[in-house]
């Protein structure tokens, strides 16, 4: 621990981020890393995409996060050294470990796990106390209720309890919707904060049938915004749910609701808050994803800051975007509880006079876990603890998911699908959640579920022609690399096992994927049919849940040889969003 403390105290990167202001440790219990000079008259705390990770986790940031066209080389599409250079973070520092994949295994041993709600609680309370009573607001950007076996089993009810104890005052949603309306509403009855979504409306049929809505006149299903008085000023918070819920997930979970970016409606809402409600600041709590937020910020005026999530981009500094009304700052606060955003506002009459933003890594070893939250986590987890602690295998290599095209954990899942379901090819979704397991560490059922726990985990085996397989790859690739962010859905490329292909991300839709071959080197033929296994289909399936398929495969000890990625990239060689294949 002494060694680690020394490592942490050498975090010059953090100082660079805050503008180099000298800070002193206040006490041994509150390390200087989290000392923050007083600024402004309102403090907004932002967390997002924790994916229900109540305990501290390892999470390797991506080594491939490509930006193309206008987005090339611009945040968030920077990885590794390009990221450190852009944000002035010292290599080898704790911040370098938190924000990038560089030296991940070596640094994981030095700096430990990040996040954890008991640690988050300690940090949040500290930032609240520093700002003083009535001066803060805690916001959650969604993907709070999904990502662990426990959250899935409890349909997110565990996370509502944790959110209440944490004191989350408003949130929006994405995976929350995949529990379906009944479970969602049941959770919201117990949630002490507000669930905000300006962009969720009743379908015409549902409205015609008088389905439940917050505002039957507009068809808005949820409250779009709240106004909070902070230090004598009025701050509006608008919620923006993930715009593509019925497309990215089975429509059966949200049959009555229609989503979308809806920036026209958003503009009307912002104008109404400004003109009629005379608010002094407007914040957008968004689950759009960073590229969508950047475009939205250029089109909608009157928003001071967009507090963003979904794409799991940990971006240390806001991006300023010009629009017709002035400038909007766009942030994105990472994932898995690794980070806490602190937005300090100097509010004035009708405007934000000045602003400071910091994105703090939540180093669990530097923060004393809050006893109340720890007790809550232990109590809720007790019925599941024994089952989830079961050791299933030992990691023979670093197992991670995040990356545009591939991750070692997904290779394992694809291998499991192919072997257990006897298929030539496996397809596995490119989710951006899913924690990391270090080499030689045990892989537990908890870890297996942290990669797979969704409400539609059923596997499938079906025959597909070569051209159908190519069409799927093209389709998902366009969701990732369409030049217009409004046509992107977030998430990463579908993972393909048992086959290889060439991807040219900068090409137009339908022309990015080529050279499809099976692992044995034979070309995949357009008209020929192949046996394909997969999971997380938007169509209802009946196969064994993927977590059992993965666990069975691991238990049998059949882990295959580490393979190189089956994806060859073309036309992106010097892209600052590409460090190594992964």
């Amino acid at each position: 621990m002494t060694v680690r403390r020394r490592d942490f105290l050498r975090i010059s990167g953090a100082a660079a981020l805050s503008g180099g202001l000298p800070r002193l440790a206040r006490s041994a219990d509150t390390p200087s890393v989290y000392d923050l000079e007083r600024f402004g008259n309102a403090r907004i705390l932002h967390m997002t995409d924790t994916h229900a990770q109540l305990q501290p986790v390892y999470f390797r940031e991506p080594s491939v996060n490509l930006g193309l066209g206008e987005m090339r080389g611009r945040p968030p599409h920077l990885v590794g050294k390009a990221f450190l250079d852009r944000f002035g973070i010292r290599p080898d520092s704790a911040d370098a470990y938190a924000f990038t994949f560089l030296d991940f295994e070596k640094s994981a041993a030095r700096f430990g796990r990040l996040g954890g709600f008991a640690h988050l609680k300690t940090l949040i309370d500290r930032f609240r106390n520093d700002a003083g009573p009535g001066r803060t607001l805690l916001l959650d950007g969604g993907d709070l209720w999904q990502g662990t076996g426990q959250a899935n089993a409890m349909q997110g009810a565990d996370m509502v309890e944790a959110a209440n104890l944490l004191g989350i005052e408003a949130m929006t949603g994405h995976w929350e919707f995949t529990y379906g309306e009944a479970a969602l509403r049941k959770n919201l009855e117990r949630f002490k904060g507000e669930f905000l979504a300006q962009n969720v409306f009743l379908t015409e049929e549902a409205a015609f049938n008088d389905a439940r809505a917050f505002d039957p006149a507009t068809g808005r299903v949820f409250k779009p915004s709240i106004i909070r008085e902070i230090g004598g000023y009025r701050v509006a918070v608008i919620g923006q749910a993930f715009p593509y819920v019925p497309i990215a997930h089975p429509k059966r979970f949200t049959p009555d609701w229609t989503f979308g970016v809806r920036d026209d409606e958003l503009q009307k809402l912002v104008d109404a808050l400004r003109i009629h409600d005379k608010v002094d600041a407007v914040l957008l709590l968004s689950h759009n994803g960073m590229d969508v937020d950047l475009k939205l910020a250029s089109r909608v005026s009157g928003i001071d800051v967009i507090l963003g999530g979904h794409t799991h981009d940990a971006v240390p500094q806001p991006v300023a975007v010009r629009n017709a009304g002035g400038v909007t700052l766009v942030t994105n606060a990472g994932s898995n509880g690794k980070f806490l955003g602190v937005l300090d506002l100097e509010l004035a009459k009708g405007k934000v006079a000045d602003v400071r933003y910091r994105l703090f890594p939540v180093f669990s070893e530097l923060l004393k876990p809050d006893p109340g939250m720890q007790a809550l986590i232990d109590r809720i987890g007790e019925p599941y603890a024994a089952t989830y602690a079961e050791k299933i295998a030992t990691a023979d290599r670093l197992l991670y998911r995040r990356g545009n095209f591939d991750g070692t954990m997904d290779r394992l899942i694809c291998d499991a699908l192919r072997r257990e379901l006897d298929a030539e090819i496996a397809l596995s979704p490119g989710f951006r959640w899913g924690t990391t397991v270090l080499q030689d560490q045990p892989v537990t059922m908890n870890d297996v579920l942290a990669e797979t726990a969704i409400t539609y985990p059923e596997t499938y085996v079906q025959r597909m022609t070569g051209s159908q397989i190519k069409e799927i790859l093209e389709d998902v690739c366009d969701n990732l690399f369409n030049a217009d962010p409004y046509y992107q859905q977030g998430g990463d490329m579908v993972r393909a096992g048992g086959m290889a292909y060439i991807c040219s991300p900068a090409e137009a839709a339908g022309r990015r994927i080529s050279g499809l071959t099976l692992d044995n080197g034979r070309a995949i033929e357009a008209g020929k049919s192949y046996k394909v296994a997969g999971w997380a289909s938007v169509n209802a399936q009946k196969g064994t849940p993927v977590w059992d398929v993965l666990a069975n495969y691991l238990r049998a000890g059949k882990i295959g040889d580490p393979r190189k990625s089956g994806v060859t990239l073309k036309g992106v060689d010097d892209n600052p969003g590409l460090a190594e294949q992964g």
Partner: protein
Amino acid sequence: MISTDNGFSAARRLILKGTATVALIGLGGVPFGAIPALAAANDKWPEDAFKQKGEADAIKALYGKTAEPSDKVRLDAPEIAENGAVVPVSVATTLDDVTSISFLVADNPNALAASYQIPPGTLPSVANRLKMAKTSNVTAIVEAGGKLYSATKEVKVTVGGCGG
């Protein structure tokens, strides 16, 4: 009169649609008397236009002229369709003297999807649902003062899944 590409009684659909619109959006000002008037003005089915494969040919067959893009034509359509079989699109315009509004889906087997004749005094605002097999540009044509104006937006139809 209204004509669609599948031979359904489109007038009836418009009436139902109109009722829903009044109920949902509160467009109380739409005179119901206009509907019998619409039904009465039953022009002949523009068979040739609906048979054309391409967008330009369909516009030419229907109107005999070409359209110019206009920011006065407001086309509302989703960026990504939640269901390609029923894609909600609507068009409204601030142009005067509107006589017809048409919808085209460039990459559908037959581009022309629907064409509405707008009698004098009617609010030039139409909502429609389009069936789309794949990603395509959707174009709204407004005929006003004898000229054609258009707005186009790409609507993506995706197999879905795999979101973040």
